[in-house]
């Protein structure tokens, strides 16, 4: 196992390499200067130091990373070849369990084991692990010394150390940038992989178009037919996020942006614009709690008072309302930017013809700013349907296909949370359904974002 001691040792070696290379470079520099040529040395001594230090540490570090991933497998295989392993059962699953327990005891993580069969394996495990550790450490140190020595011999006055070091820096920057791609790939692949496994258990058509959602029934062995129809979830997501929330956010967001850009004095704008941004900064769990604690009961009482049946204390309206308020800054800030990028000459042209400010806004500015506003709305919808905490806390778990805003509906995100809570058998259709839902959510939000950005980009180019 790679202990912190080894890492410290490596770092120490790197430091020594740095210091000694630098000293040598400084000596060479002094000699070159003494010979009369001022620019004899290509790179500053510090760069030589870094060059040798990097050659000392990096190869060993890369080796250790690979070793840490590969060694446990090799150790396990060696243990299995031991005579003590012949008593192990044949099936893969219990064998792996016994091995991991033996490993845990050998490395000291576990004081005693549950399985009797693991006991005889502990000693071979400890012994072989020790051997491999020694081998790994030796190899790492050898690499460090070899790398350092090789680099040290190259320290000369005309050696372009700085160029090399800078190239390594650039490579590091590029590697860091690749992490973005790796993450995206990671998301896509993990979602696809798990969804694939899900769709081998449940027909995709049933999933995408079925109207009965009761995964609990499937878990209890009633079969997967008619248990994973996600349409009620899609409906709930759209109902709360795209309909109710937008009905709140679009008028309030757009009119706020119009007021702040066209009517408000600079002082009012200075205070109100940050206030709208604060709305976006409040954590969604706070919104969710507020919705569940205050808004939902009030709405339910209201509904009962005006005689609507089926009013629940976890209503789509409560969640949608609060979500709409949270989304206001997304709509208003995009609208603000769009309206401001309409050239002032257009506004002047309309006013000079005797139009009132509101006529100018309604007939000239908004139509001109429309692509930007639409883009903002699409981004807001994308944000709303991906929102989790507000709906988990304020909407419900009932997969209803209803248009009654006072009733309880559930959403894709709520169900993802619900399915992955509690005991997870990671192979059951129930937990894999969460990934399938995640895939749908990812694809839809991605499409919305792409369309929105394209709309906004085309609009910006029109006004450049």
């Amino acid at each position, binding site marked *: 196992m790679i202990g912190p001691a080894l890492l410290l040792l490596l770092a120490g070696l790197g430091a020594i390499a740095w210091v000694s290379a630098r000293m040598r470079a400084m000596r060479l520099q002094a000699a070159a200067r003494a010979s009369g040529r001022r620019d004899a040395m290509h790179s500053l001594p510090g760069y030589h130091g870094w060059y040798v230090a990097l050659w000392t540490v990096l190869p060993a570090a890369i080796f250790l990373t690979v070793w840490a991933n590969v060694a446990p497998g090799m150790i396990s295989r060696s243990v299995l070849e031991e005579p003590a392993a012949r008593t192990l059962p044949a099936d893969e699953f219990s064998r792996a369990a016994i091995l991991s327990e033996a490993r845990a005891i050998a490395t000291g993580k576990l004081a005693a084991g549950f399985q009797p069969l693991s006991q005889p394996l502990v000693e071979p495990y400890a012994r072989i692990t020790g051997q491999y550790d020694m081998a790994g450490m030796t190899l790492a140190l050898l690499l460090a010394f070899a790398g350092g020595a090789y680099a040290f011999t190259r320290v000369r006055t005309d050696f372009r150390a700085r160029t090399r070091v800078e190239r390594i820096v650039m490579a590091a920057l590029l590697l860091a*940038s690749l992490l*973005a791609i790796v993450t995206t790939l990671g998301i896509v692949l993990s979602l696809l992989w798990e969804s694939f496994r899900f769709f081998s258990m449940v027909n995709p058509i049933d999933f995408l178009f079925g109207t009965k959602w009761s995964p609990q029934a499937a878990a209890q062995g009633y079969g997967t037919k008619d248990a994973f129809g996600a349409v009620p979830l899609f409906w709930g997501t759209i109902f709360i996020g795209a309909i109710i929330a937008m009905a709140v956010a679009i008028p309030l967001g757009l009119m706020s942006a119009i007021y702040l850009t066209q009517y408000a004095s600079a002082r009012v704008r200075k205070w109100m614009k940050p206030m709208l941004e604060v709305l976006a900064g409040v954590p969604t769990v706070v919104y969710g709690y507020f919705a569940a604690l205050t808004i939902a009961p009030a709405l339910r009482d209201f509904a009962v008072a005006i005689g609507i049946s089926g009013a629940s204390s976890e209503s789509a309206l409560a969640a949608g309302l609060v979500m709409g308020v949270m989304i206001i800054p997304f709509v208003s800030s995009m609208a603000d930017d769009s309206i401001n990028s309409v050239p002032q000459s257009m506004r002047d042209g309309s006013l000079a013809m005797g139009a009132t*400010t509101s006529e100018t806004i309604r007939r000239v500015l908004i139509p001109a700013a429309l692509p930007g506003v639409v883009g903002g709305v699409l981004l807001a919808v994308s944000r709303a349907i991906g929102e989790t905490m507000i709906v988990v806390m304020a909407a419900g778990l009932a997969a209803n296909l209803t248009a009654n805003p006072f009733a309880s509906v559930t959403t894709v995100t709520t169900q*993802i949370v619900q399915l992955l809570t509690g005991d997870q058998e990671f192979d059951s259709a129930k937990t894999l359904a969460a990934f399938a839902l995640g895939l749908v959510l990812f694809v839809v939000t991605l499409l919305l974002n792409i369309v929105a950005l394209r709309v906004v980009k085309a609009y910006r180019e029109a006004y450049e």
Partner: protein
Amino acid sequence: MSAATDAPRRNPTDWRSDVMQRRIARRYASERMFKLAGLAAVLVSAGFLAFLLISMLGAGLRGFTRTEITVKIDLPATAPGLTPATVNARSLIAANLPGVVNDAADEALGPGGAALLSPGAWLTLRDAILDDPQMVTRVETLRLPASTEIDLAAKTGGSPEAEASVERLRKAGLLSTGFNSTFLTTSDGTDPTQVGIWGAFKGSLLTMVVTLLLSFPVGVATAIYLEEYARKNWLTDIIEVSINNLAAVPSIIFGLLGLSIFLNLLHLPRSAALVGGLTLALMTMPVIVIAGRNAIKAVPPSIRDAALGIGASPVQVVFQHVLPLALPGILTGTIIGMARALGETAPLLMIGMRAFIATPPGGITDPATVLPVQIFLWSDEVSRGFVEKTSAAIIVLLVFLLAMNGLAIYLRNKFEKRW
């Protein structure tokens, strides 16, 4: 094509006619309504925010206080084995302080008096003794925390029996309100009078540290690469597209990613700050990249030209000239990104942070929870006493976010140079 096509002058519009005047009046009225609608929109938004904050404040401030009952405890009589010299943690356990407290309560407050106190009241006695060991030699009057029912009844109202007890205690002068110090020093628990946010807070802190350590270098490095060194090729395009998409992916998807890769593939410890930090780092990194790119873009090319002109290499130009100037903007963006990560709940639920954690985490691999998840867990609790605790936790969270955003704004105003 000249004015000859319509030589006689067209009748000028009669602006004074009734029709015109009415129409103009209508247009002005519509203008007023429109302006009012805009103002109303702004006020409604502000009003909602105020409503939210005030209601949280109202419910939560009470969470910082607790009702206390004055109880006389005769330590020499009820805990005879203790002397000032032998007082230590272990001997206090052996002394059965809970029993001492129950007996004292029953005696001082009447039968059933023990139920009026919080189950954790004995901890107050224990801490008092540890502070002042001489206490074991005398009869001491202590203010002990009351039970949830009494606490609620004293603050807002409760069952008739509870309210009657409150009245009785108040008349006897035994009721008082004190600062709820346990709220800031303990972790999750079963009884509302014993819970605190320290465990969740420490978990948040550890998670934030991991997030920052991972997302900041990678984010800044990516921003530098994209802005300064990347050539216009397909690889750069893919990186940019990835960043923009990642910035817009719902946070719960990152939770699914964390679950399938960090937990199931790499077998990292569940519900640990390490995994939470890794997941949030992936989520925060695009935010830092975008803020970093904007900050670097804002540095005028003349700075770079000047540096290149005296012979600096491209790496030196960036690290020694551009980056220092872009740093305030990068830091502002980072703080804002971290504030967002601090408030995130959904991805951490996915990686298992929704378990009941009764002790603060020791390191980044211990099971932990974070403040927003703690709030979520408490919001589900049935006991009414949790309402004020949840709101109080929300206040703590909001205060921290306010401080972070305030710091970001301060940095932005102080260091942002207008070129």
